[in-house]
């Protein structure tokens, strides 16, 4: 029973970060209908920025979020303006290829600059943990989870109550209608891609203290982000949040009860089952 609760708990904690990655992807998809295959590489950039700030200036990874997130936001906005904007009306295949290409450029650009060596960001609390009702809670995972919860809450507030947030949601619902209502759709697209990128970067920063950092780290996260988003329903933020937690728990439980080498395999099988039997996800698009 302890083993079950323990792995359930760490699954939920990791799932929070997955949720953050998924929310970023789903916002981008919702507003632009573009599937971002470079999402994991944006996360990787977030990791490297965090690692750089930590090794150069000794800034704590959670504090450096204040730098990482805005930097990644600007980077995403730039990518949208220069590249993604040009293929908004192109075939979906070409959009996918463009983002794959951008991802390759980012990961290999970083590799050229920083070599493919594994970097580790070790904080004083990297391997320490709390004891809670007989369960051990990893400190960095817990902090990451709390930050995730705060950011998700702030994001909900932003999207639900502010004018800009509502404009973004309106663009996601119906681009043409939003434009007719006087919403600057182009600006919303730039904002949405920036926001999605910032979320991916934030997730990268939160993962940095517990993960190896290397240029190719993004690939598996891209795929996982898709699983999270499809599970929750493309474009649904609540769905992505639930999907993230669910994937985290699935991974963690199958690592214990199936085999640690097969935890991702189980996730992909789950993904295929969802695609086949409930393609609109657990929560459909309508609840965006």
């Amino acid at each position, binding site marked *: 029973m302890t083993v079950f609760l323990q792995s359930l708990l760490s699954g939920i904690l990791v799932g929070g970060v997955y949720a953050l990655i998924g929310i970023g992807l789903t916002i981008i998809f919702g507003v632009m209908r573009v*599937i971002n295959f470079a999402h994991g590489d944006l996360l990787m950039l977030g990791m490297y920025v965090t690692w750089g700030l930590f090794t150069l200036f000794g800034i704590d990874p959670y504090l450096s979020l204040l730098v990482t997130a805005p930097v990644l936001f600007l980077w995403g906005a730039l990518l949208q303006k220069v590249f993604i904007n040009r*293929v908004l009306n192109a075939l979906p295949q070409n959009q*996918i290829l463009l983002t794959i*290409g951008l991802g*390759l450029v980012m990961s290999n650009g970083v590799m050229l600059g920083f070599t493919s060596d594994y970097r580790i960001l070790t904080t004083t609390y990297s391997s320490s943990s709390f004891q809670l009702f007989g369960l051990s809670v990893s400190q960095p995972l817990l902090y990451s989870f709390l930050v995730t919860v705060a950011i998700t809450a702030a994001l909900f507030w932003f999207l639900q109550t502010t004018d800009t947030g509502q404009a973004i949601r309106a663009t996601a619902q119906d681009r043409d209608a939003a434009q007719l209502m006087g919403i600057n759709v182009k600006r919303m697209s730039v904002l949405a891609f920036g926001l999605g990128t910032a979320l991916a970067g934030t997730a990268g920063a939160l993962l940095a203290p517990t993960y190896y950092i290397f240029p190719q780290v993004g690939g598996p996260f891209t*795929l996982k982000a898709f699983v999270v988003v*499809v599970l929750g329903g493309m474009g649904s933020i609540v769905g992505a949040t639930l999907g993230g937690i669910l994937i985290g728990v699935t991974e963690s439980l199958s690592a214990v009860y199936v085999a640690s080498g097969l935890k991702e395999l189980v996730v992909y099988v789950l993904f295929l089952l969802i*695609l086949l039997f409930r393609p609109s996800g657990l929560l459909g698009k309508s609840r965006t």
Partner: protein
Amino acid sequence: MRALLPTLRAPRGFSAPAFLAYLAVIALVALVPQLSRKPLILHMWIMVFLAIAQGSAWNVVGGYAGQYSVGHAAYFGMGAYITMLLLELHQVAPWYGIAVAVAGSVLLSVIIGSITFRLRGPYFVLASIAMAEIIRLAALHFKDLTRGAEGILLSSIPPLETRWFTVRFLGKVPFFYATLGLAVIVISVNWLVQHTKLGYTFQAIREDQDAAHSLGINPTLHKNLALMISAAFTASAGGLFALYVRFVDPNIAFGIDVSVQMVLICIIGGIGTILGPVVGSVVLVLLSETLRNPKWLVQAGLLGDESPTVAFIEGRLSNAHVLFYGVLVVLVVLFAPDGFLGLLRTAVARVKRRLAARRSPPGQPAGAA
């Protein structure tokens, strides 16, 4: 199903001069090892042939049937693994091994196809990636069967002995002819797909699946047929590749970059055309092999022994070939969505129009004839 059977009369679109030119090019290329046996040069040719085989095989399902599979590593890896496992563990000669590998991969393609072809567009892309990843993770995990991440190292390839000749798989020449043969076959298959009824059904599905369905084409069946053809040749390329490099591991065989590269070859050359994958393979292989090992330029006599270019590439750019892939893809998608071949066609058309304009009397709009 009549289109599947060989017909005696020449299929539509057949032109004798073009066919003779094709044969002449093959004959010329086949002479290469007789003229020069510099290993790095032959290596370049072999890599180009393998890339053509993979790209053209993907083109059948991706280019003609319009199903953007980004999971073709599953068939490539299956071809490589079955061939290597049979040879190394059970001493089955590779020419039988590749036949078994092809059969296995076609079977796999039927399974994968019947699952993923229920989905369309981006969902199909994602499902195809997930399938290849599932197989890669399984190959990493089930060590008893595949030796896991350790991979399989080939000790030796038995000689092929027939009544008339004996082929020893030493050096690169046998692989030159084997891969050339495969490339020629797959290019011919692309030609058939473009010009026969079966191929027309693929193209109809690509243009509008629902319209094709309403005309009596069974989309699932025909998409699966396209995938089976594609998988068979992808697996052959995988088997030959593994024999050539004498090593295979889950990431080399099933890695997502294998799948992506097949798509890139077609995109960069020109998707859904016969020559597109050929052009794309030449561009990509020249680029990546030059950056990885620029010494071939010296062997080709293009650069001197002490050339600073070689030193520069080896020192600075040896890891950058994927970066260049990425830049190339971004440029192609943004500025030349029909690939290099499309660029060439537009350029030719422009020159023709200029010439026509020059010939037509002034005052008339160019190309008005």
